[in-house]
């Protein structure tokens, strides 16, 4: 029988040990003529394997990573469903429908402004008082437009794996707050505008979840702060936000009572504005995922 090479015998013994099929002694007894040469190598290899095997990740790290992994998966799945539900013609028609709606609102706003100016002139000339109960739709129209345009830019960047700057998120937050303060009583808005605002806020919620879970610091913490603002606005308007499979472990507590969420793991970074979840940079998906040898 042709003698087996030492590297093959060594691997046979090592594989048997690592897979729990044979002990080192049992393996050595199978190769008595090689014992002298084989034994020190096997002892070294076993020491290396056992030392590495004893080094497990801390439980809280594993759990925190799992939460982030599953939340990110859920957000991706949700975002995929939102975009894949529509065929290309539907997307075009949806886009046109939204633009048409915006044009109608802009026309309405311009009409109101003209009417207001005329009324003011008439009022000045007649010395009367202005009527109460002006429409709430006109001042919010440009703000909704700005918000939608900012969202579209962010969706594009997030989907293409391009870094999103924290300034863009801050601008989105500011526009959301401006929209909230200009909207007044949500119940007073007409049905069509209310539906559009609900969609805008729900889309923004999904978008910010995606960014918070896929972008590196300092963008991710900024996105979590913007999420808190979005949730606050949704609550004040009485809007139900989309349900995600699991909430991100490090979402800020936006209830305003200052308490920490009880389910957070002990080592989960604080959701305060000064901290982020991951100090490492996240390269673009295409960068080096190693899909080919």
């Amino acid at each position, binding site marked *: 029988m042709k003698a087996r090479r030492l*590297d093959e015998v060594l691997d046979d013994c090592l594989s048997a040990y*690592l897979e729990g099929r044979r002990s080192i002694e049992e393996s050595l007894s199978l190769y008595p003529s090689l014992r002298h040469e084989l034994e020190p190598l096997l002892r*070294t290899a076993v020491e290396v394997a056992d030392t590495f*095997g*004893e*080094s497990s990740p801390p439980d809280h790290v594993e759990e925190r990573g*799992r939460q982030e992994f599953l939340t990110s998966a859920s957000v*991706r799945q949700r975002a995929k469903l939102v975009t894949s539900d529509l065929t290309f013609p539907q997307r075009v028609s949806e886009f046109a429908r939204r633009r048409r709606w915006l044009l109608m609102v802009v026309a309405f706003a311009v009409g109101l402004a003209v009417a207001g100016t005329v009324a003011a002139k008439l009022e000045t000339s007649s010395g009367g008082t202005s009527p109460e109960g002006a429409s709430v739709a006109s001042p919010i129209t440009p703000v909704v437009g700005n918000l939608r345009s900012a969202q579209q830019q962010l969706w594009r960047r997030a989907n293409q794996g391009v870094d999103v700057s924290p300034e863009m998120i801050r601008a989105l937050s500011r526009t959301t707050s401006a929209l909230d303060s200009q909207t007044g009583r949500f119940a007073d808005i007409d049905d069509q505008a209310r539906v559009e605002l609900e969609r805008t806020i729900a889309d923004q919620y999904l978008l910010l979840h995606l960014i918070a879970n896929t972008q590196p610091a300092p963008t991710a913490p900024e996105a979590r702060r913007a999420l808190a603002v979005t949730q606050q606005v949704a609550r004040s308007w009485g809007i139900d936000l989309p349900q995600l499979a699991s909430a991100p472990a490090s979402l800020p507590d936006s209830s305003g009572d200052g308490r920490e969420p009880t389910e957070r793991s002990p080592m989960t970074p604080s959701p305060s504005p000064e901290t982020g979840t991951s100090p490492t940079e996240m390269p673009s998906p295409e960068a080096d995922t190693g899909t080919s040898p």
Partner: protein
Amino acid sequence: MSPNGHAQGERLMVDAARAGDASALSELYTLYFPRVYRYILARTGNTYDAEDLAEEVFMRVLEAIERFQWREAPFSAWLFRIAHNAVISQRRKETARGRSSQLSEGLAVNSQGPDELVENRLALSDIREAAEKLPEAQRQVIALRFAAGLSVAETARTMGKGEGNVKVIQHKAIVKLREMMGQARPARLYESETAR
């Protein structure tokens, strides 16, 4: 479970994970996170880097899993190529920042007392220092075989080499490690004893 049964079970799990099944994703994470962590720890010697990079690897997995194809490589080989690329990227960043890779002081090893922790840290430190001096291919084989727990076949697919070649590299690496650890061990043990 037989190797075939195991492979089939893993295939079902990976396919479900690709379709976005949360429980399959969780199972995949449970199965591979500790192995990815150990692999990165073996390559970087730093627990903090291992924690951060292991999490980052799974985020990359999420981004790329839809593009994974069974005909190219087994899932483990694909996953550890991502982990390898993450280590290389990290190393490039560190080189750019001028930071050398150091073994962290606080090696966190579960369920160990202070003595065991010191011993493990020393052992890991010895192994890590010795492995650092090996050529890249040998270092990679040691980390994949003994830290990640891959088979020779999986290691070969991960590295894009033949199984025979991996066995030869493994043999050479163990011979060198034995030489280097034999030299380092007495001095290290003395330091450990006097430190206690």
